[in-house]
């Protein structure tokens, strides 16, 4: 079980996250919804360790990952909204930064994560020449290089075409099927079907939400 307890964060006078607590079952996908600027990315950034928190814990199997940085680095994979890639270099070069060696990359390209994401199609293409979908797939490929248990995805399908969305969705299904835990933020109605549980982040508070297919009701809740 993954547990987030009393997580708080403020920027200046604005309380972005106000004593947030929730639990996520391992091997599931959890979605965080909310309007723009409500703090979804801040929440994921804090869980990814790229942003400091005011207080709170993030436990995986009873270990607080915020205090055990080494464990955190091995357990958590993070795909931010931006492009965590080196623009001038090819997909292969970017993968080299995260994978232990060339052999591991080749294995993954043959029948592993990178094959599912279809990265071999653009292995030699520089990031600066890639489409948004290619960049996102490569970012995911880099984020899961160390086989994390928890994958944090900040709007993974934003501005992607249907094929690319489907590819990423397939990968996430496989990831959770193998026991991995996904926590994602999204504005995409299609992605809701991937999520076993949903939360709405509003005014710094996290509220559980059950999506019943009524889009207008969801908009009203946000």
């Amino acid at each position, binding site marked *: 079980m993954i547990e987030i307890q009393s997580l708080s964060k403020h920027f200046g006078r604005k309380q972005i996250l106000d004593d947030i607590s929730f639990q996520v079952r391992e091997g599931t996908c959890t979605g965080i919804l909310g309007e723009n600027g409500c703090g979804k990315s801040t929440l994921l*950034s804090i869980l*990814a*360790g*790229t*942003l*400091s928190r005011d207080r709170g814990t993030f436990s995986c199997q009873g270990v607080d990952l915020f205090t055990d*940085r*080494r464990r*955190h*680095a091995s357990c*958590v994979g*993070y795909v*931010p*909204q*931006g*492009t*965590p*890639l*080196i623009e*001038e*270099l090819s997909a292969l*070069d970017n993968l*080299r*930064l995260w994978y232990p060696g060339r052999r591991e990359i080749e294995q993954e390209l043959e029948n592993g994560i990178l094959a599912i994401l279809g990265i071999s199609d653009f292995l030699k293409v520089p990031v600066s020449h890639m489409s948004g979908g290619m960049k996102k797939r490569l970012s995911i490929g880099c*984020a899961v290089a160390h086989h994390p248990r928890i994958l944090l995805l900040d709007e993974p399908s934003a501005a992607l075409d249907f094929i690319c969305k489907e590819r990423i969705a397939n990968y996430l299904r496989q990831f959770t099927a193998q026991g991995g835990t996904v926590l994602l933020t999204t504005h995409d109605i299609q992605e809701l079907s991937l999520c076993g549980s949903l939360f709405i982040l509003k005014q710094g508070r996290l509220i559980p939400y059950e999506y019943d297919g009524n889009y207008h009701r969801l908009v009203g809740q946000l």
Partner: protein
Amino acid sequence: MKYFSLQLKRVCRAFPAILLTTLVLAGALALLAYLQALSSSHSEERQKITLALVGDAEDSYLGLGVALIQEMDSSRFTCTLTEMTEDEARRALEKQQINGYLVIPENFIRSVMTGKNSKVTFVTGTSQYTVGTLLARELADAVSTLLTETQSGIYAFQRFSIQQGAVDDLDSDIYDINLRYFQFVLPRTELYDIDTPDSSPVISMQGYYVCSAMLLFFLFLGISGCHLFIRSDLSLNRILEARGFGAFRQTIAEYASCCFLLLLNYLVLSALLPLFASKAAPAIPELSAFAAADYIGLFFSFFPVIPAVGGLLYFLSQCARSLISGILLTFLCVLGLGYISGCFYPLSFFPPEVQKLSALLPTGALMEYMQNVLLGEQNGPAILILAGWTAGFPALAFLIRRRRLSR
């Protein structure tokens, strides 16, 4: 280590384009400077008053007077006197090739000597009644005054001597007065020493500009290469930090790759060294007696320039949040620092306060260091200041990176 090696790879990939951009940038600036110099010189030429001398210009005293006008600092940059016939002068005036002409009457000098001054006539077109014409009129007055008063003075002395009966050796005395006067005025180059305007009392102007050109080349690399080090999106760096590759290691890796970029360019410059040694070096006093081994020594002696300039450029790239602001910042800093440090004009042209400030700046210390290397002198305070900046810039860049990652 992987991050560092990938940074090196980025630099290698971007290197040809950066080198080309730098050469184009440096070439464009050189061309601009050349055109500016050409235009200034042309406009100066246009502002110069051209006058024709018509009439009795055969007299030796008049010839000396004209020579004086052509030689004196107060007049030689502002006027040109040319001997012409009246017809030629009139035609030249119609074509606006001259501003006017002076008609010197027959036996002008003799009339001056006898106290019956004939008037010099200044002829100019009415269409040219401009500031230039007014200046030309003033000049004509000055010519008349110079010719008449100077000679009148000398001959007044001659007359006074005759009246007083002091005629012994008078001719030789008059001749001596004239000669002494002309000896003082005409060979003016012997009246003063030429002081080479540079920041060091010993380095030649050519040597000085070799140092400034080299420093400017490295600084311009910053403009064309800064895009490699400007981070508008720190996503990757944040993730790296979360994985244990913190701001310090990131800064060291990126700073080292910035130095590597400068090193690559330095190697390209060094490849041109044999050409430079055969063509340009003989004209540079400090290098004229250099052997091949000396050039190798010089190559290694200039090495400290790389980490110092690398530090400056890397620091500037870390101060910027976007590519455009980064390029603009680097461009302005490079030009500003280059100017204050005497890369464009010799430092001795600047006020003493600016010279003192320059010595403390990284580029000023670099110029001082390179000049000392070229002269084969010991580097004292310059190397300490340089070492301070070389360590200081990456340290400042690290603080900026750490602050940005913590936000």
